[in-house]
């Protein structure tokens, strides 16, 4: 049963051929469906590059990671790419544990992501 507390605010911004998604808050099993909805909206236009700016995400569990893996797979189907930036140490840690840090393109800043 979803409620307002499960909504994850996600800012969408178009930057040239890229779309930047800027979620804000902890991403866990309760909130990853809300993130998935925002991603679907952003990917409906098949942007060449989808950038997740995670500077305002202090925590993510494997359900959040799974949602980003889904986004990457969708992007690959239309020959787009996914870039992650601004990861907190705790969030980067889960990508490393799952050995997904070598699968995703991960950079420090949004500027690097736009030019990656």
């Amino acid at each position: 049963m979803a409620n307002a507390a499960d909504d994850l605010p996600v800012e969408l911004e178009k930057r040239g051929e890229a779309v930047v998604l800027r979620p804000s808050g902890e991403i866990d099993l309760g909130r990853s469906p809300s993130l998935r909805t925002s991603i679907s909206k952003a990917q409906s236009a098949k942007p060449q590059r989808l950038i997740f700016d995670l500077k305002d995400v202090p925590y993510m569990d494997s359900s959040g990671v799974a949602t980003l893996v889904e986004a990457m797979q969708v992007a690959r189907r239309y020959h787009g790419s996914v870039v992650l930036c601004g990861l907190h140490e705790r969030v980067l840690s889960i990508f490393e544990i799952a050995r997904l840090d070598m699968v995703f393109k991960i950079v420090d800043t949004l500027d690097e992501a736009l030019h990656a």
Partner: protein
Amino acid sequence: MKGPPLIADPHVKIDMLSQPRYLAGARAMIASVARRLGFREADCAHVALALDEALCNVIKHGYEKREDQHIWISVWPMEGNCCGVRILIEDRGRQVEPAEIRSRQLDDIRPGGLGVHIISQVMDHVEYNKREGGGMSLLMEKHIAAEESTPQARKEPA
């Protein structure tokens, strides 16, 4: 001395409904307890992550996302030569053979199935069991070496 035997009353016991909205509260509780027990900040985060992943697995697989079921979290401090925290998570959900609970191949890049792997990576001891009368239990321990304990923990009164 390892941690207290499981027959000892837990120092913390929480009965939560199988709803994802309560994961944040469970994470905050265990991170706070771990901090006071002397874990470094990175290890507090790992203990919280392990609890989160364990609860997610119960909600998704044990209770198949039914939100009116109960999950019990018990916490004991571990003191003596082997300091740390011991966490027991119990449910009345679907039972599986403990030997069948294992991580998937990480080379297979797909969404989901990472929880068991993450728990095994961040905790020092992980033990799945079937509960008598139904459901599963997961016992997890995270140890802390005496030289790693934080000043805050060392100042705690006995």
